[in-house]
């Protein structure tokens, strides 16, 4: 049984213009100890997906369909109280901004001890010992003195380490990290990512990494999920997706990176921008920006096609699989006005 199995998840936001579906038909699994990356641009729904796993979607958003099976239990139907025993305990979350999670008026020790005692019957001294041990694991120098400091006394990279230590405090089996290093500098980012990778690996913890950075995904994760306009468009082993992406959007994302082009040449841009959730084009949501668009793409939603280890939602890929000769890519310069 998979550690986490998300089936057909649908999340809607009731806005004044009517309900907007932020997530549609999202299904994926995370195995024990597996590292999964969810990639997408802003507005793709990747953060909504992560938040909905922990039932952290706030009004006017709600889960309108689908199930989230975590160790066989459907999280979508749990009460707040039942959810609290899972959140932070079995599944931990790491946010983009460390100051969002750390209370500025409590010392690190107070926060960590409180967190431990909320979930376990444990003496303060024991809790403190565990906290120090976790701080040591995330390579905080001299954890015995650091534990009595306040969050503002620490640098950004140090705070993100503390967040990871707090996430590990109750020995979770799954960590959800929402853009954990976006606010940090490159050199610090590399260190935090390495730390996260090693800790998940050595403790056999599953990781869902939400990011827009394909480089980070390729270094950290084993499986990648690419999202566009609230749907998964491609998922499969990270290596396959990075080296041999099937969906035109994934290809476009990878090719748009400056390192994929000879310096000085124009970058391979994807024309246009992601549609807003209120105005998603019919058929395949990517069709107005796609170089390979066919008539079918404008009318019918593509279903998933297996291609190697990946599954891809694209009419073109399906047609190629069925009959490789018939499909000719359209010349992009003529197609888009």
């Amino acid at each position: 049984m998979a550690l986490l199995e998300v089936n057909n998840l649908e999340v809607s936001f009731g806005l004044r213009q009517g309900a907007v579906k932020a997530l549609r038909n999202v299904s994926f699994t995370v195995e024990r100890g597996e590292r999964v990356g969810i990639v997408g641009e802003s507005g793709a729904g990747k953060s909504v997906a992560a938040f909905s796993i922990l039932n952290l979607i706030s009004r006017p958003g709600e889960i309108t369909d689908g199930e989230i099976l975590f160790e066989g239990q459907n999280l979508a139907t749990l009460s707040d109280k039942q959810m609290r025993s899972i959140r932070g305990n079995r599944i931990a979350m790491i946010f983009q901004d460390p100051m969002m999670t750390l209370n500025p008026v409590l010392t690190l020790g107070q926060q960590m001890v409180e967190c431990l005692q909320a979930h376990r019957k444990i003496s303060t001294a024991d809790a403190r010992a565990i906290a120090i041990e976790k701080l040591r694991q995330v390579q905080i120098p001299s954890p015995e003195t650091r534990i009595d400091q306040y969050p503002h006394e620490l640098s950004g990279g140090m705070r993100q380490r503390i967040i990871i230590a707090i996430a590990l405090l109750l020995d979770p089996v799954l960590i959800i990290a929402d853009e954990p290093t976006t606010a940090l500098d490159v050199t610090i980012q590399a260190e935090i990512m390495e730390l996260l990778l090693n800790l998940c690996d050595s403790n056999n913890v599953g990781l869902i990494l939400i990011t827009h950075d394909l480089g980070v995904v390729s270094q950290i994760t084993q499986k990648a999920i690419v999202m566009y306009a609230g749907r998964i468009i491609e998922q499969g082993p990270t290596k396959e997706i990075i080296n041999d992406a099937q969906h035109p959007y994934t290809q476009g994302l990878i090719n748009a990176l400056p390192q994929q082009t000879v310096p000085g040449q124009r970058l391979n841009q994807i024309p246009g921008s992601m549609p807003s959730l209120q105005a998603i084009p019919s058929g395949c949501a990517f069709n107005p920006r796609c170089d390979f668009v066919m008539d079918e793409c404008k009318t019918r939603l593509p279903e998933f096609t297996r291609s190697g280890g990946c599954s891809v939602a694209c009419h073109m890929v399906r047609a190629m699989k069925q009959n490789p000769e018939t499909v000719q890519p359209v010349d992009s310069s003529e197609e888009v006005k």
Partner: protein
Amino acid sequence: MNAAQPILQIKDLYKRFNISGDFLDQLKFEGGKIVRKQEHVHAINGVSFDVMPGEALCVVGESGCGKSTVARTVMGLLKPSGGSIHYKGDRIDSLSDRALLPYRQKMQMIFQNPYASLNPRKTINQTLEEPVRFHNPQMSNTEVADKVKEVMFDVGIDPSWGVRFPHEFSGGQRQRISIARALTLDPEFVVADEPISALDVSIQAQVLNLMMKAQEEHNLTYLFITHDLSVVEHFGTRVAVMYLGTLCELAPTKTLFATPKHPYTQALLSAIPRLEDNAPSHIRLQGEVPTPVNLPSGCVFHGRCPHANERCKVEIPELIACDDGSKVACHGIEEGRL
């Protein structure tokens, strides 16, 4: 004009910000006496470089290294605390607002945050027309409108959208409008302060392409501020690496990426997440970036440098020219031990 004359020269630039507050806040009680204490953020500490016509000089560094302060000082948004800035040989850092006006037309700026850099209460046409009218009072309404239309078409925004307000556009479109605003005055020199860091990957490529196109068509010179080294490799003619307000290394892009010399540059380059390698293999730096309030003595990088020795802790390294055209500020390179 001499072709080899730099378009912009920065000499020994210093910028300090006083963070000690009012006079009353500065008074501290120490050792039984009341003393007046002033604290400064040392944002730029003796930075010198030239920008040559037609090139794209990229300034890279991590947050707090003073790269944005350099951009803002060059544009006259901040007054330098020391040193000088010359534009085509004329000193511009000490000019009054009025005397700066002719230079304002030639030097323009593109900002980081596309959501804050356009006035939310003005339509796109108003935003784009205002600078044209202001600098060319003799132009008729139709001439102004034609100029704006031309620039909007250049950056890929349909001119009929000019009557709309900024909030009706996406981030990438707004950044195009920002670029259009900079181009309305036909500048020669454009300072771009992290123009793509707030944008999505696919949009970053569009905006970078647009900037390269504008460079070719309008013969622009760029001073490009960024933290993203992969963009630099693609876009820059030369690269200046900054750390804690000082210049570590200044080199042609190819040279820098092929043979980074300064230990900090090496660490920075190794930290870029790349698609090819599957495991992170970066050079680990000790500790964290010190605050620019209390600068370390000697080389500002010595506390984190794996090769630092006693000399690095006391003596500030000079920028030294190497054979391959790069300039490095490092005692280790100078002594030949690195």
